[in-house]
Structure formats: C-alpha cells, structure tokens
C-alpha cells in the first residue's frame, strides 16, 4: 500500500514537474511570439504597399487608328496595366515613395513613375523631391489608377494631349483649412526627359502653380504651367516655349457625379489648342451610368468631338467592371481629328474592362 503511495506521489511529482516546465516553455514561447508580432507590427506600420490593375479589351468599327491606339482589330494591351506603390516612413516627418507601373502598350516593361522623398516641413508645408508626376491635370497623379475614375480610360481629347507625364524636380505643397474649406497650393519646378510615341523629349525650365479649393464633395482646381519643349532630332522643335492652363471641377456626391476639365495650350512655334470635357454620372446602388462630351480644337483646323456613354458596375469594394462606347461623329471631325487617317465613317469604340485596387 505504502509502496503504491510512493509510486503515485512520485508519478504526480514528475507529472507536475513536466507540466510546469511545459507551461513555462509555453509562456516563454508566447512572450517570444508576442515580441516578434510587435516587431512585425511596428515594421508593418512603417511600410504601406498599395496596388492597382486593369485588364481591358477594346475595338472600333473603322480601320483608322484613334490616338488611343484603337482600330477595328481587337486589342487587349491598350488599357491593361498594373502598378504597385511602396511608401516607407523614414521618421515622423519624412517618407520615401516609389511606384512601379507596367503597361500593356509598353510590353509590360515596368516604369518607375514615382520615386521621391516627402518631407513634412511644418503642419501646413510639405516638400517633395525626386521623380514626380507632372501635375498638369486634376487626375494626373492617379491617371493609371482606373478604379478611381468612372470611365474605362481617361478622356483622350483632354488627357491624351500631353505625351510626357513625369519629371525630375521638386515641389512644395501648402495646405490650409478655412473652416470647412481646404485650400491647397502646389508649386513645382523641374525637367522632363522621356520617350513617348517614338519621340524623345528633353523639356527644360518647367514650372507651374496649382491652386485647389475643396469644400465638402466639391473640388475646383486651377493650374498654370510653363515649359521649354525639345523633341530630339527635330531642329524646329528645340526649346519651344509653351504655356499650359487648366481648370478642373469635380463633384463627387452620394448620387451625382460631375467631372470636367478644360485646357488651353499655347506655344511659340507649334500649333495651339483648347480642349475640354464634361462627365455627368448617376450612382444607383452598384451601377453608375455616365455620359461625357469631349472637344478638341487645334489652331491648324483639326477638330474632334466625342460623346461617350459608359456604365460602371462595382462588383465589390475593390473591383469594378466597366463598359463604354465612345462615339465620334463623322460630321464633327475636321481634317482627321485625332485619328492617323480620316475615318471612312462615324466611329464607335467599344471597351470592356475590369479595374481593381488593393
């Protein structure tokens, strides 16, 4: 009996010991895991990764190619693109941002659209330097993020006019709150070298100022920019002094959506032009039907007007399915408009695309 007791008590002790070591290991492990999680969390809070992508197919009913690069052949590369943005916090006031974008039209060669240092100088002033996106238009900085726009692609009569999109330089952003109004100033300065549509640009003395006024769901933006444009290999197009003025309006209400931008481009040797568009949309549940009227009018007599009817369907909070028909009436085309050759009849461009952000 006594022997039995000894055995049970020693067994009990062994078990207790085992149990205790076991639990002490477990709590050590937990602490370790917690510490590691905290480290990961602190690290993760210093990095932001955001991405976007679009796949689309498009075709028109004519052989002439529009400036968007669309003709009667079915194309999948026109609108398809993907981008990824990294934001790394260096300290409380500064961060570094890089954004890579690959586009179907460029054979998916990834381009570094953004690579800049962002420094918060004071509560109201931010300075940025590096590779930035030219702030010509209201949507310039998010032009590839199709999910953020109602259309399948930015309206070409306005947004297709500037072949260069990035610059190396600096900008200063001043923002203030006047009651419920946000007022912002953006001054920028830099140079822009790049290739577009087979042309090599070397633009210098570029600078400009943008003023943005934002109240509730309404935002108004005015910008004026200067630049000396040089197209390499064309002696006529060396240091062409030019000015660019833009007025943009956006109303993003719970039901109605209004977007519009008007631009005027003046230069001392090439042709001047004016262009504008207005988009009106109405949200009803997941559906947003919208209509756009766009106009491009150049000094040499080239005119193109287009009416676009589109429908956006929000599949989920990250995915939008869009379809759109752009109509360019033959009678409103002067010369060949923005087509490579004059189209033989009125043009209809059909596009279906899927956009996502993550």
């Amino acid at each position, binding site marked *: 009996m006594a022997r039995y007791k000894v055995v049970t008590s020693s067994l009990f002790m062994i078990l207790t010991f085992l149990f205790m070591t076991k639990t002490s290991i477990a709590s050590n492990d937990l602490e370790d895991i917690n510490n590691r999680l905290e480290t990961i969390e602190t690290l993760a809070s210093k990095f*932001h990764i*955001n991405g*976007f992508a679009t796949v689309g197919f498009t075709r028109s009913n004519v052989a002439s190619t529009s400036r968007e690069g669309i003709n009667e052949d079915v194309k999948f590369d026109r609108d398809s693109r993907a*981008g990824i*943005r990294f*934001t790394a916090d260096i300290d409380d006031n500064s961060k570094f*941002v890089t*954004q890579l974008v690959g586009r179907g039209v460029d054979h998916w060669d990834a381009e570094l659209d*953004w690579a800049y240092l*962002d420094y918060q100088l004071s509560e109201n002033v931010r300075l*940025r330097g590096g590779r930035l996106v030219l702030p010509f238009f209201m*949507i310039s*900085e*998010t032009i590839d*993020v199709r*999910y*953020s*726009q109602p259309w399948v692609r930015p309206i070409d009569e306005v947004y297709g006019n500037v072949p260069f999109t990035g610059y190396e330089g600096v900008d200063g952003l001043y923002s203030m*709150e006047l009651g*419920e109004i*946000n007022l912002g100033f953006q001054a920028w300065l830099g140079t822009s070298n790049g290739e577009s549509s087979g042309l090599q640009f070397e633009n210098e003395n570029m600078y400009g100022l943008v003023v943005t006024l*934002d109240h*509730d*769901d309404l935002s108004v933006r005015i910008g004026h920019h200067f630049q000396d444009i040089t197209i390499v290999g064309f002696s006529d197009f060396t240091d062409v002094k030019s000015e660019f003025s833009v007025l943009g309006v956006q109303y*993003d*209400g*719970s039901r109605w959506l209004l977007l519009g931008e008007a631009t005027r481009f003046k230069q001392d040797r090439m042709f001047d032009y004016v262009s504008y568009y207005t988009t009106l949309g109405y*949200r009803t549940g*997941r559906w947003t039907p919208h209509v756009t009227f766009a106009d491009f009018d150049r000094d040499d007599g080239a005119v193109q007007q287009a009416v676009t009817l589109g429908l956006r369907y*929000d599949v*989920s*909070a*990250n995915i*939008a399915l869009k379809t759109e028909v752009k109509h360019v009436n033959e009678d409103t085309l002067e010369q060949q408009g923005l087509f490579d050759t004059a189209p033989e009849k009125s043009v209809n461009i059909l596009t279906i695309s899927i956009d996502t*952000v993550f």
Partner: protein
Amino acid sequence: MKIIFKLILCFALVSSYTSISLADIVVVVHPGNPLTSLELSNIKRLFLGKTTKFSNGDAAVPFENSSQKTIFHHQITGKEVAQLKAYWARRVFSGKGFPPKEIKDSGRVKTLIANDPTSIGYIDSAAVDPTVKVIMILP
C-alpha cells in the same frame, strides 16, 4: 392598383421593421476628451482625411469599424463603400494620405478608444460602456 397598394404596404412594413431592428450606431471618443458633441461636418471631414483635428483644435485619430462601416458612411459621408474606396485610391496614389485604420468590430474599437485620448470611432450602441464617451448618435 390593389397589387401596387399591397406592395407599398409591404415595403412600408419591411422598412419600418428594419429601422426598429437595426441597432443604432454611436460616435465615441475617449472619456477624457473635453468635447461633449461634434458637428456632423467635422466627423465627415475627419473620416475623409480632410482634417486631422477636432473642432476645438485638438489632434484627432479616426478608426473605422468594419462591422458598421457601410451604414456609418452611408449616413455620415454619404459615400457607398466602393465610392469610398475610389475616393481613397485617389488620395493614396497621389500621396495625399491613407485611410483610417480599420478595426474588425465594435468591441475592439471600444478598447482602442478607451486607451487613446486622441481617438474617435463609431460603435454599435449596445457596446457602449463608461470606458468611452458618446458624442453623437447617428441620425
């Protein structure tokens, strides 16, 4: 005509039923926050990243509540979830800022707010207790 009337009646019943059955959402801050109420426009501006301050000038850090996000934004910012996503995409990809941190449910939002004097969030009214201070009941 009779069918239409019945449909309207049905709809009225269903909508009154849902308005009763849905719990209210309340906007809450840390109990130490000196504010006793907040204007709707200030809340809207905070949750859209247009301001980083309460109306009295104190720093404010908003938190989203995944479980109540749809109704909250429908009522306060007037934006549906997809529209809100597009709004933030425009801000994120132009470097203007990031959306408020999203927390899973009312309980977790409450714990966060109880421990952070600068925070503001919204929770299910059923979750309210003295660890947080209600400054608005959603209309």
